[in-house]
């Protein structure tokens, strides 16, 4: 998996930063996107579409709260639909950021440097999108917001700690908090850089405030790096725990198709799979439009492609094991479910999932495919679609035909389901657009460090 250990291919592998960069060019190149470069028509075009979608999200949520969850396509037996599918999907996407920042940092993978900042931002935005769904999908969100919290009260009523949904509350909120802290701590030196380079008073004020008095002293750097490492250590188990807990929502239930022990590892692998796909989806346009090919090189793209291939294979293994266990266990409900996935009313979704998540990504075995930027971009989208379908298959297809044939039914989303989903995509994209224009999308400090290291190596 690690290309750096493969000496024969090392020669062909692109560097993590193109040669010829100095501290000055790095700083100039990255900070100019925020400080001096005009926004451009493309940016405005993009963000206005995203903003439109956010407005639609607002409308969908307002109507939902006014009328009730009945505006969605839910029914009995399929009482969870798009909302939960989207929740799991977004949470999965939110995995790559912390994985890149924390685990790759601890593993001393230098190539993470160029992509960790926006991957972390992506994580935060994805988790924000995800967090919306569990709240609004409840019948009474106004109570859900505080009944789920274990606050001390005179009545002695607590949440029900046996429920995986309560575990979710803790897992997701912890993950979000740690990710936010990690991201913010990492931003501090860059915020100071922006403060120093900013020319307008408001920019100086805002970046100055956010930089929290960073002066770049050796003591600062020492403490900064210590804190960063500690946070990385703290975040590492969360990478595994969040999606494990999310998978418990399903694994703990009795529903055939949910009740399986393979879910935690399989969900984590799937999350990393989709997370990296989303990083690729964002990285390719970012490096293209802002001329960052020097910093986000083919090396990065290829490495991410390899991670996708590896996690994709784990996911494929998960599918196979699910299928095998359905028959090996002799459980008639599980074997029915497996057949229903392949031949039931939603079979097309299942086969689309297999195509998107297993068949197409096999192209990544080819070096040529991994280095073809356009193809890689398309494939990252395909994987994102595939991972969404996976959650749809798990949530809807398991529920729609469970134990009592007399209660079987179908689920079809309404425009409000689709609108809410599209709205969160809009929210995500809008936040990414704002992020790119207001904060350094690539860590300036770490890039400078990298430039220093690579120039040393070259010497």
């Amino acid at each position, binding site marked *: 998996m690690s290309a750096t250990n493969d000496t024969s291919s090392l020669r062909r592998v692109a560097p993590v930063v193109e040669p010829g960069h100095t501290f000055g060019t790095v700083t100039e190149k990255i900070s100019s996107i925020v400080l001096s470069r005009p926004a451009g028509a493309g940016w405005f075009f993009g963000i206005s579409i995203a903003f439109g979608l956010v407005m639609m999200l607002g409308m969908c949520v307002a109507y939902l709260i006014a009328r009730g969850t009945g505006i969605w396509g839910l029914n009995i037996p399929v009482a969870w639909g798009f909302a939960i599918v989207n929740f799991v999907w977004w949470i999965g996407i939110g995995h790559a950021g912390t994985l890149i920042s924390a685990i790759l940092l601890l593993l001393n993978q230098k190539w993470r440097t160029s992509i960790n900042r926006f991957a972390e931002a992506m994580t935060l935005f994805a988790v924000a999108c995800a967090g919306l769904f569990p709240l609004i999908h409840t019948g009474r969100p106004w109570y859900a917001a505080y009944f*789920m919290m274990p606050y001390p009260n005179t009545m002695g009523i607590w949440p029900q700690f046996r429920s995986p*949904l309560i575990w979710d509350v803790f897992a997701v909120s912890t993950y979000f908090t740690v990710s936010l802290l990690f991201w913010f701590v990492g931003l501090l030196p860059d915020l100071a850089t922006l403060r120093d380079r900013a020319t307008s008073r408001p920019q100086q004020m805002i970046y100055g405030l956010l930089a929290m008095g960073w002066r770049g002293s050796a003591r600062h750097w020492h403490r900064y790096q210590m804190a960063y490492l500690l946070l990385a250590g703290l975040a590492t188990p969360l990478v595994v725990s969040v999606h494990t807990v999310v998978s418990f*929502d399903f694994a703990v239930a009795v529903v055939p198709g949910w009740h399986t022990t393979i879910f935690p590892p399989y969900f984590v692998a799937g999350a990393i799979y989709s997370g990296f796909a989303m990083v690729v989806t964002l990285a390719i346009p970012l490096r293209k439009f802002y001329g960052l090919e020097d910093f986000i090189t083919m090396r990065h793209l290829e490495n991410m492609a390899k991670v996708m291939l590896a996690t994709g294979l784990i996911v494929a293994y998960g599918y196979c094991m699910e299928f095998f266990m359905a028959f090996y266990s002799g459980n008639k409900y599980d074997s029915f479910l497996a057949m229903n996935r392949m031949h039931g009313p939603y079979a097309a979704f299942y086969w689309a999932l297999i195509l998107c998540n297993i068949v197409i990504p096999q192209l990544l075995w080819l070096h040529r495919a991994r280095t073809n930027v356009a193809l890689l971009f398309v494939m990252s989208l395909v994987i994102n679609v595939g991972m969404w379908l996976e959650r749809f298959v798990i949530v809807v297809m398991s529920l729609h035909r469970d134990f009592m044939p007399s209660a079987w039914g*179908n689920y079809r989303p309404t425009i409000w389901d689709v609108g809410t989903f599209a709205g969160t995509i809009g929210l995500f994209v809008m936040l990414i657009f704002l992020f790119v224009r207001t904060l350094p999308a690539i860590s300036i400090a770490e890039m400078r460090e990298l430039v220093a290291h690579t120039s040393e190596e070259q010497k």
Partner: protein
Amino acid sequence: MSADDHKHKQHDEHDHEEVELAPREYSVDLAAIRERLSKSSGKEYWRSLEELSDNPHFAELLHREFPRQASELDESVDRRDFLKLAAASLALAGLSGCGGPPSESIVPYVTQPTGLTPGKPQFYATALQMGADAIGLLVESHEGRPTKIEGNPDHPGSLGASNAFAQASVLGLYDPDRAQVVTHQGNIESWGAFLETAAGAAKVLKTGAGLKILTGSVTSPTLAAQIRGLLTQYPQAKWHQWEPAGSDGAREGAKLTFGRVVSAVYRPEKAEVILSLDADFLASGPGHLRYAKQFARRRKLSGAGSEMNRLYVLEPTPSVTGASADHRVPMRASDVGLFARALAGKLGLGGGAPLPAGSEKLLETVAGELQKHRGASLVIAGEQQPAEVHALAHAMNQALGNNGATVYYTEPAEAQPVNHAESIRELCADMHNGRVDTLLILGGNPVYDAPRDYDFAEKLKKVRLAVRLGAYADETAEHCQWNIPEAHYLESWSDARAFDGTASIVQPLIAPLYQGKTAHDVVGAFSDKPGMSAYDRVRATWLGGHTEKEWRKWLHDGVIEATAFAPLSLTTKWSPASMPAAKPLAADQIEFVFRPDPCVYDGRFANNGWLQELPKPASKLTWDNAALVSPKTAEKFGFKHSSAFVGGEHGQTISDIAEIELSGGKVSAAVWTLPGQAEGVITLPLGYGRSKSGHAGTNKGFNAYAVRSAAALWTATGGSVRKTGETYPLACTQAHHNMEGRELVRSASFEEFKKNPGFTQLPEEEKMKGLSLYKEFEYPGYAWGMAIDLASCNGCNACVVACGAENNTPIVGKEQVLRGREMHWIRIDRYYEGSLDDPAMLFQPVPCQQCENAPCEQVCPVGATTHSAEGLNDMVYNRCIGTRYCSNNCPYKVRRFNFFRYQDWETPEFKLMRNPEVTVRSRGVMEKCTYCVQRINNVRIEAEKENRPIRDGEIVTACEAACPSEAIVFGNANDPKSRVAKLKAQQRNYTILAELNARPRTTYLGAVKNTNPELERPEHPAKETK
């Protein structure tokens, strides 16, 4: 009518835009089904056609993008919004009690009325008259508001049981769509103005020429006496009767046999062998509740030593009685008659007829069985069968020595039994000839339901003064000058005779909500005593020679002592040999049969949402009727239906529309393929296609009266059927699925049961017993449990409506049922066993299973569903945030979610209607069966006051109370002497999905059919046909 239908369809297209846009998924391939069934080995259960067909075309649809969705402002919501306005403006007049205290000074009770404790319900006895029968009821009243109906155990027609119609009549009382004021030519008038008009009319009537009275069947002695009095006063006046779903066949059959109209009263409890000739005697017709109870009691199984009677049913269309049969034979209605003749011949009564194809063996067996059980057998002719079949049944019963044993004859319960078809023909002829000056229409809806060839509406125009007493401003009201709102039976004083003659006083539970009047008042208006109240009239009928104390006892008991008619000793001179030669229907000729709908009956309950949303026993359709055809007939005409993607199997089925031309009329109807329907028979259920009913009833389904002529009231031939190519969305709660090898309903023949009384026990389930990760709950006190005997359940639906009435469960409207969101806390699953054309039907009521290891309890994040100290799985509505996780994790799918605010909080009538002991749930909350926890607690309070344990049978859940066949038993499973514990101790007892180890408190006793080994049906006759 076709114009109406089109209008209807357009209306629906408009309202259910999404429905119409929903892509079809796959169609039913009957040939494939047959093949599949024939290939499978062993006993296979299946639910319906789509599943069997296993068609892969479903996938096609998935290539489409999500089709456009219609606005969420769906029909049901529009209706509600409209109701809010309508109610606010119309309903408040009679309901000053619900808007807070009045501004005038009010005085509380100084002395509490005897027996009234605020907060404690009181029960009053009354009776619901329907057709030629009345059902004795006990009505629960909360502070003067009737809220719930129970059967009256002292009444012979109820024995404590009730049916869906009686249960739903509470909603009928509070229906805000009811006619509320007296109108004249559409203008609001006063009752006084009407009395003046009536007095004026009475003055000019003189001998009464031109005065006609039209009623339904009258079993009220007081009303009959009043009408007779009027006829004496005006000798030339005439009394006509028209009951669209009444049985002229029974009346004429008795006349043919005995020379006069008598009622046949059955004693199924004494019969070893019963042959039903198309008689749905367990679920409709006079005495059906009593018969259902006695029939079921005769078959209760306690062990291998128990005895069972045997029921043969020959019928064209699947009925509740057919489902209960040990041998059910689908047969065209006319073939049933032929079979009866052949059987009479076989029994040595003379006559005979060519046998319907393939029934030789059946004839042989049935004749043998009947003869073997002389004096303990019973032949029952169906209400919709012609006079000859009734006469044959009487003759056969007599020949078999059953008279006086399993059947006896009495004076008719109807005060004036006449041939209704003839009666309304005379009236129409008189109207046509201008001989009707004044017409009193007391109840009924003849413009809608009279035979189409009489064109009642057109002829009504020639009547100078048409006075209509009706509950709704309906089709008939439109054509009458004076419309008097009819008081509901819960608002009226009256009396009624039951099937055996037992009379009951109908006493009101509440003063008329609107300005309702009774038939007594309207007839009285034309008499010499116009001002006399109905109360005085009823007392005058009965009080002669009796004391006030006796009167009070009658009111209290709900029956008047010793009013049941004595058995008559009759002789028949009629012989089947005197019948003209039979003319069998050609084998390929289509026969149309009309049937009262199991939910809206003849149309009178069309505006009752509880009944509209009640899934029909066999088809599980709601909110619509459909022309029922057999799979083979559907194949022949190319009729298909398919599950839609919205709702799917549990919600929406897209069905082909057929154009039916019959008896000079034409109607477009959705077609439903019903396994068990006789081949070549198209059943047209009555009661739908109302053009003017109310918010719930208008424009639902198709109007079968449009093709019903006087000459062919129940069975018609010579019509044509054509597939139009259009489709219609039907709301079906359980469209299909076989059991997929899951042993949900376990059944055996009586022989098998005797060999192995534990036939329901599966070895693999034994292993699961006692396994749990969690600490076991302990129940030192009560442990509530329920046992449902599938051998007794006949699928009649009384429990479903009773549950809704008791627990304030909302109706959601067709649009929501299409999406699979109906709210019934108890549902009745229907499974088929056997071949496609002649399957056995099995019913399984599924309330909350109240699991010991409840999967729902573990996953609720806020503890809104918890385990009670007595083992109930409680719902805490206040705490529920609506994650719906519990429903997902419920293997039995008994939980129901308020996706919208389904309850109508504004309409004041509905506030009065609800059970004050049960929370009215809001939007976003999960709900489900509670085992009627409010009833448990009421009894507990009483028991604790008396410092004693709760007695067995003291707590009766709503479903248990309503059940006519006593299939549902509730009690303390901790007490080994309780009825429920004894049932659970039977070897037949099993739990569904036992392998999940949820350990439900609701258990089932396997179904047992007393099949005749001589007639053992081949496992898969489909093999022969293919």
